[in-house]
């Protein structure tokens, strides 16, 4: 209860929450406001925003409604962000927990692996993964998750290192509890809060990574993604710059909302660190 009160007392956190709710509302209402396929032809191409009352954000170079693409794009961005974050957090937790709990050789091997992933530029690895496994929305999402796990893994490992010899763990070990139950039943729930807060950073980066891939036309071309629209608008940047400008603002607002909420949660749950 205290945490909620502390959260609501911070203006940036509230602004973030409001923005996030707006983006969520856009995602939920997309099918209802724009019942037609957002990628189908809607009218004359390249109409400026407000020029035609039917298209209040205008149309893109192939005559598709930009507003519809923005609303459906909210779905794609949130979906990819959430699933990719889940993938990376699960991989990160498993690897970090094993490395932190067992230590020794397991730790060395797993940390070498983590280091290798961190030495390799993550966007480059993403390009390789997309080149190898193709670029439909499922593979792109999993690939983004696969390149983002090292940081959560390190965080989980650090938590496990500090928790594994605490009294409650020893107390659970004495009656002969098995390792896996100790790791996932006893230690993990205590190690989880900072990892969950960090998930907001992973999610913000995941949304940005997907939009960059889509901008380079390496993401799924058959979904209404904001990055796709920006890439498309690049061809008409000289005169009709709004085609690229509008979806970019949508990405900015979404990523900002996710990071503000994450920051707010962090401050609310760790009040001692506030003001840093």
């Amino acid at each position: 209860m205290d945490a909620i009160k502390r959260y609501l007392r911070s203006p940036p956190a509230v602004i973030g929450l409001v923005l996030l709710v707006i983006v969520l509302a856009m995602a939920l209402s997309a099918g209802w406001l724009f019942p037609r396929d957002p990628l189908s032809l809607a009218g004359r191409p390249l109409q400026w925003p407000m020029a035609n009352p039917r298209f209040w954000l205008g149309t893109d170079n192939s005559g598709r409604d930009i507003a519809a693409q923005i609303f459906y794009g909210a779905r794609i961005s949130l979906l990819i962000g959430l699933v990719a974050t889940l993938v990376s957090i699960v991989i990160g937790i498993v690897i970090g927990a094993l490395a932190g709990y067992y230590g020794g050789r397991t730790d060395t091997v797993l940390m070498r692996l983590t280091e290798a992933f961190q030495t390799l530029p993550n966007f480059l690895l993403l390009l390789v993964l997309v080149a190898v496994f193709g670029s439909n929305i499922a593979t792109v999402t999993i690939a983004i998750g696969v390149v983002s796990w090292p940081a959560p893994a390190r965080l989980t490992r650090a938590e496990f290192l500090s928790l594994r010899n605490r009294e409650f763990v020893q107390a659970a070990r004495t009656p002969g509890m098995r390792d896996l139950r100790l790791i996932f039943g006893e230690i993990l729930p205590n190690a989880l809060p900072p990892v969950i807060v960090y998930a907001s950073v992973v999610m913000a980066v995941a949304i940005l990574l997907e939009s960059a891939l889509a901008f380079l036309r390496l993401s799924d071309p058959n979904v209404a993604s904001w990055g796709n629209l920006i890439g498309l608008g690049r061809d008409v940047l000289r005169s009709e710059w709004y085609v690229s400008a509008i979806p970019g603002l949508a990405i900015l607002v979404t990523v900002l909302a996710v990071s503000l909420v994450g920051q707010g949660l962090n401050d609310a749950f760790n009040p001692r660190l506030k003001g840093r």
Partner: protein
Amino acid sequence: MRILSLAGRRLAASVPTVLLILIGIFLLLQFAPGDTVDAMMAQMGGGDAATARELRKFYGLDLSVAAQLGNYLWRLVRFDLGFSAIYGKPVVTVIAERLPATLLLMISALSFAFFFGLVLGVVAARRVNKWPDTLISTLGLIFYATPSFWFGLMAIVVFSIYLQWFPPGGLEDITTVNTGLWRVLDIARHLVLPTLTLGFIYLAIYLRIMRASMLEVQNLDFVRTARAKGLDETRVVVRHVLRNALLPMVTLIGLQAGTMLGGSVVVESVFSLPGLGRLAYESVIQRDLNTLLGIVFVSALVVIAVNFVTDLLYARLDPRITSGV
């Protein structure tokens, strides 16, 4: 000398990391649909199966995966990255042509982000929770949330199309031949927008870290002692607080080197710069797997080199690191 041996030991420890990366990526690329011979055959306009078999034998592609991997690693020891069928040149040559533009972009973006991140972070920390701090922190959050390719496009709209201050792309003007100082100035003019585009995200990260670490160091005992000795405020901030607050910033350079190389893929394709990032993008599109593997290798080397330099810098800023161990 102790600094060098310490950093050298860390450098030696990164050899297995590079090996791990290369083996991993090599095996991963075995899953890729089509090989070099397929790409070459497509370029030649097709051919019969016998020719394909001959070519596979010539390039050693008919061997087992393990043997191919062994061959690749052995060639790598001699710094032979193979041959790019698409560019018709050795991969080393292709990469060497593209590396300077990327390094130039990375260094200028990093300097920009580091310098302004430091200054803005110090200003924000000095006026904590007053309006300059709020303004700087808000701007930082917004920069962090801005997709870099979009920022680049909008910068092109404003500064190249409407104001016409800077060129919209390319590394230098190809319509006129410039030499000496004029060439340097011309390249600098072309690099302004890419530098800002790549730098702004890191600026946001650096200023946040700088602000946090200034706030932390500001309240330590030795700073109070320095004030009590009667040192003036500037001296306290520069000599005592700043020097210690810089440590996390330097760590961050090493950590961010990889993501910065990744970011240059996008920025280079927005501004059509002939760099390593765009080469990576092109080789993904054209299935030029030899080149892609070479780029992975070279970028891992760049990241490790940056970390080596960071280690040296770190030891210089904090003498305890070398004397303690």
